[in-house]
């Protein structure tokens, strides 16, 4: 059974009169890494957020079956609790909330949902500090408010920190590579690779194939104007790198 099965997904901004996603089909099996590539404005972030259940998007047709359950119509927290994770393209800043407080609350919610005991503060600190070190986040940063005054790269590393601690079944990474220098890109990629396993899947959403040099995908899909116009192996990413999206946009126009 696939971990994620998206069928004929249509979605729009609530209240808008036009769909942004116009019939997306995607099957992701446990343990696979899929890349979704596409030009700016093609609907990549929309797709990522519709998977995560962002409230101001409306699904107008199709299904999202995750781990055997239909997600359409369920709130974002339920999806998170059942193992979905979205690393945001633009993570929110939360004044007065420390990164660890936020993460501990998220982990506690998960434990409660699964009927497991919560980690003690001591257990959590240990896990947290080790992971912070692993990813190479400046520990001073963690004394600040969540994402406040973080650079773009620091925000992305912090998303990967959450990924590593929350250990979801499916991680959707929305432009986690954008705006990163090479060191940060390597650190973030290493973080993702360290989490690859036979029972965890990834959807890497990206404009450039840069990150795919470090995180090798099993499948690559090209999203243009709200539809997947071509799918292939890791090579497809290289092809995009050489030819750009022009060719795929033309393909779409003839559909």
């Amino acid at each position: 059974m696939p971990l994620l099965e998206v069928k004929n997904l249509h979605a729009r901004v609530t209240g808008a009169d036009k769909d942004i996603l116009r019939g997306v089909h995607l099957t992701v099996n446990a343990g696979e890494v899929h890349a979704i590539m596409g030009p700016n404005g093609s609907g990549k972030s929309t797709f990522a957020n519709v998977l995560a259940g962002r409230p101001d998007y409306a699904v107008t047709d199709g299904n999202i079956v995750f781990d055997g359950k239909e997600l359409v119509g369920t709130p974002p927290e339920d999806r998170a609790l059942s193992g979905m994770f979205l690393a945001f393209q633009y993570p929110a800043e939360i004044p007065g909330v420390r990164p660890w407080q936020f993460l501990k609350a998220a982990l506690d919610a998960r434990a409660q949902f699964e009927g497991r005991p919560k980690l003690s503060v001591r257990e959590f600190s240990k896990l947290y500090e080790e992971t912070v070190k692993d990813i190479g986040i400046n520990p001073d940063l963690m004394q600040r408010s969540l994402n406040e005054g973080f650079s773009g790269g620091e925000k992305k590393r912090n998303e990967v920190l959450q990924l590593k601690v929350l250990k979801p079944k499916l991680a959707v990474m929305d432009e986690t590579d954008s705006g990163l220098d090479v060191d940060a890109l390597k650190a973030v990629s290493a973080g993702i690779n360290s989490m690859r396993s036979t029972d965890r899947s990834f959807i890497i959403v990206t404009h450039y194939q840069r990150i795919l040099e470090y995180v090798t995908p099993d499948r690559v899909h090209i999203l243009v104007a709200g539809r997947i116009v071509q799918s292939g192996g890791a090579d497809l990413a290289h092809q995009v790198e050489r030819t750009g999206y022009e060719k795929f946009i033309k393909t779409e126009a003839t559909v």
Partner: protein
Amino acid sequence: MTLANPKGTLPGLGYAADFKDLQSLSNGADASWIAQIRERAWTKFAELGFPTARRGNERWKYTNLAPLAKVDFRLARPDVSHAPDLLKIKALAPWDDAWTTLVFLDGRFVKRLSRPSGADCVALDLAAGLRARRDIAEQHLTRVQAVDEDHFTLLNTAFAEDGALIHIPDGASPAPIHLLFLSSDSETPQTCHPRALVVAGKNSHSNIIESFVSLSDQSQNFTNIVSEYYLDEGAKVSHHRVLMENERSFHIGNTRVYQLRDSTFDSVAFATGQAIGRNDVHVKLDAEGAECNLAGLYMTNNKQHADNNISVTHEKPRGTSHQYFKGILAGQSHAVFSGIVVVKPGAAKTYADQKDLNLLLSRGAEIDTKPSLEILADDVKCFHGATAGHVDQDTIYYMRSRGLDLETAKSMLIRGFASEVAAKVKLPALSRYIEGVIDQLLPEFALEGKK
């Protein structure tokens, strides 16, 4: 400042009767200088009335005092033998056995519940203070205030009978001193006019807490306090104000601060609850290198009204001042921030900033925020800013996408917003108390916006 304001609302007959009684009671020879001060203040207040005019009344532009003026509050005559026991007080108010605490019931000192200070400072009720340190009282009692009097200070001066006199000797750093003002559960509307005088000697370090707590949800009280702080050279005062009177009550708090060279006045004010709660803070930095840091957090719900009226006047060079206020507004509540920094000619190298940030949780909540600068000197750095916004939906979504339900997310967001001020409280017992109050308020606040 001129008090020749547009017509206000004259005080009710109860006020006049109570004033007459008060004067006839305090005819001792020793009290005559106070009686004179009182008489002058009353005459002036009786002429002016409450500043209720809705036009040309800059200081009360966003706060309509009519609901306060129309109640004929009677001067509280508390029977202190009926003061609650310590257990009840500890459940309602901040408390630490290590603090020096002066407890007041409707403005009247309750010795039985108080904890005296050590020998390293003077912390007495006003009557005892006047006997023990008449010199300090006479030197300071009207001095700070005289600079900038107002209606409620006049009213306070007319009726002030009790309060506190605190003297921190040069170089001393005594245990924190807590002035706890309890409003009784009287069935009729009652008022009291406590007066506090704090004199901090050269290079002394002190913590002062003023807190205001109602013993019942039902009583209607009007507390009109004037607190004066005098900071000598190098003195450091950490001031805390906790305003927790009930939703039927009115509170006018006037805090006047006068600072000398290199002194520091840090203040954190927390307020929630009143029908009208006014926090007037006026600071004068009257010598070089003085610094004041004023922070405040107001959380209003239902029909509550919180008003912060802040001014900092830089008289001399190299002064620093910060104002950092935050509001969290729910229900149909209304809050006001009007803050001004005045930099007088010659106050070069002044640094001043002013910030008022508000989180509006409901459509019905309303904030009037007006930070302002009046700069009459060159070579200064001054900044100000204010914001008012609703809960950010993208932030809430981000939090939910990590598995937090809507209410938990909202609570955490509000908590975080509040904690940026609350974290400035460094006294552990007080910090726990304020955190506890915020936690209690959170569920109601977090529910807002779901409707």
